[in-house]
């Protein structure tokens, strides 16, 4: 496998996940002659302008036709191409949902879907473009892996893994915007499916994913000052979920999940299912986007509005622990 190393995390974080997706694909293309990157008229939004110019034979936009996008990608995958497709999260997970189910799920064809701007990172573009329900939908379809990188370095690790290994079809969920906080400021060991312990603690277990990993770390710093000692876990692979999570859950009396996704069907539900299945006795809090179509504004405004920044999260946890 082509090795990927985190070399310039601060610069990558400044550029943001979409620009870095395009950048990483440029590198992957140099070492993968079977690569094809497809988009439904969102090449520019995927940071693929340089890729298009440098590797025109490896790039295709099918126009604004997401259902067609998935079908064409599946046909190419069947013929041995390593295919990545991009579009905004709801357009992949909902507009093309049944094509995903038939072509990538049912036929198990290894197309990698890169969902741009998931969560509320599309800001003023509004709920039509937000990825509120995509994890819930994708995880109900058999065979589809779901990855949710915590920062741009982790995105690189995930993309290289899918590009150079045979892991089957995947949904890679991009959250956060340029200048989002950094989780990994130097290289680290990443393995598909294996959750990562970022901080050990004893009072509370915090399980987070994507953009919320850095906010959880911020929250835990605030909580440390109040002598609340949190264990912080980065769940970068939401499906398949690492079964070792069950042993970890058994060690804590208080557990919280934090995600930039609806509280229905995402990480909170994944963990709730484990708690129920294994009859784990714990107090459980799900922090995420509420079950409603909320207002529109800048990303920072929305994260604050929904109580998803480090400070809000710390307050929610303090209240939770009082109960």
């Amino acid at each position, binding site marked *: 496998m082509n090795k990927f190393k985190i070399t310039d995390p601060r610069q990558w974080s400044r550029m943001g996940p979409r620009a870095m997706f395009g950048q990483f694909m440029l590198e992957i293309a140099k070492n993968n002659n079977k690569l094809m990157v497809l988009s439904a008229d969102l090449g520019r939004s995927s940071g693929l302008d340089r890729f298009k110019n440098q590797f025109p034979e490896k790039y295709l936009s099918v126009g604004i036709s997401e259902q067609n996008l998935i079908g064409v990608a*599946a046909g190419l995958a069947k*013929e041995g191409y390593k295919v990545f497709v991009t579009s905004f999260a709801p357009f992949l997970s909902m507009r093309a949902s049944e*094509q995903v189910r038939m072509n990538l799920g049912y036929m198990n064809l290894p197309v990698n879907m890169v969902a741009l701007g998931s969560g509320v990172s599309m800001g003023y573009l509004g709920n039509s473009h937000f990825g509120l329900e995509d994890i819930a939908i994708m995880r109900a379809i058999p065979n589809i892996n779901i990855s949710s990188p915590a920062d741009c370095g982790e995105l690189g690790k995930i993309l290289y893994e899918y590009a150079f290994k045979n892991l089957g079809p995947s949904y890679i969920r991009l959250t956060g915007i340029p200048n989002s906080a950094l989780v990994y400021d130097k290289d680290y060991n990443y393995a598909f499916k294996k959750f990562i312990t970022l901080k050990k603690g004893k009072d509370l277990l915090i399980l987070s994913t994507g953009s919320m990993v850095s906010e959880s770390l911020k929250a835990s710093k605030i909580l440390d000052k109040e002598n609340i000692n949190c264990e912080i876990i980065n769940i970068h692979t939401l499906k398949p979920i690492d079964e070792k999570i069950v042993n970890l859950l058994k060690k804590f009396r208080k557990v919280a999940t934090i995600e930039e996704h609806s509280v229905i069907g995402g990480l909170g539900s994944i963990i709730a299912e484990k708690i129920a299945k294994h009859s784990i006795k714990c107090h459980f809090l799900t922090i995420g986007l509420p079950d409603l179509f909320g207002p529109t504004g800048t990303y920072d405004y929305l994260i604050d509005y929904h109580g998803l920044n480090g400070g809000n999260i710390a307050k929610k946890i303090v209240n939770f622990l009082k109960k």
Partner: protein
Amino acid sequence: MDEIEKLTNLAKKMRKTLLETSLNSKEPSHIGGALSIVDILAVLYNNILNINLDKPADRFILSKGHGFLGLLSVLYCQGYISKKKLMTFQTNGSEFIAHPIENPRYGIESSNGSLGQGLSFGIGISLAYKKKSRKEFVYVLVGDGECYEGSIWEAAISATELELGNLTVIVDCNGHQNDGSIGKKMNYENLKNKWEGFGWNTVLCDGHNITELLNVLKIKKKNTPTAIIAKTIKGKGINFMENNNNWHHGRLTRNLFEEAIKSL
């Protein structure tokens, strides 16, 4: 025996096979829309497609998945599946159900059943062939009712933009859908205009005329996909099934089966 007679006999054997298969399952099955594509499949599999199960050559995708009995009957008659295997159709746990399930062992290219998806998949394969400079062809069979699906027209745009001269779509215009007749704006003449309007090299033909099929299925145009608009009869070949939409999905009894065989 000349070629036309041979193909006519093959089509007859296929019709008999699909009726036997349906009867054997004791379950209702899609008979009408399978009978309408029998002649097309007979010519395709006997004279047009170069099929190699070990190394994909020409490819056939049945996008109208409910025509699966037709595909099974040609795969059986051409020796790709055994009688024993065929007779597992619509029995518990079988690989052969109402709609195709991808299976390279028998040359079943894709899983279908949800309409409007096979053409985009075929485009992906055609594009791969074009990129690899391979000379083989991809055929996708869709129904006229299936052409109500928007995704068909998304694909129709892509195929011309990608200049896929190696791709042929066959539209089985049997004039019926699940609940009755096709709308007036979707008859075969209108469908011809639509595909032409989308930039396809479009040809109209009688989907039961072997001589015509032998000619039109060979038509290709450089850098342009071809659409064969085949006028067909739902339930073709069995007098009491022809244009009788009760046989879109129906159950054969022993008596009805015998009557059907007589009618062949």
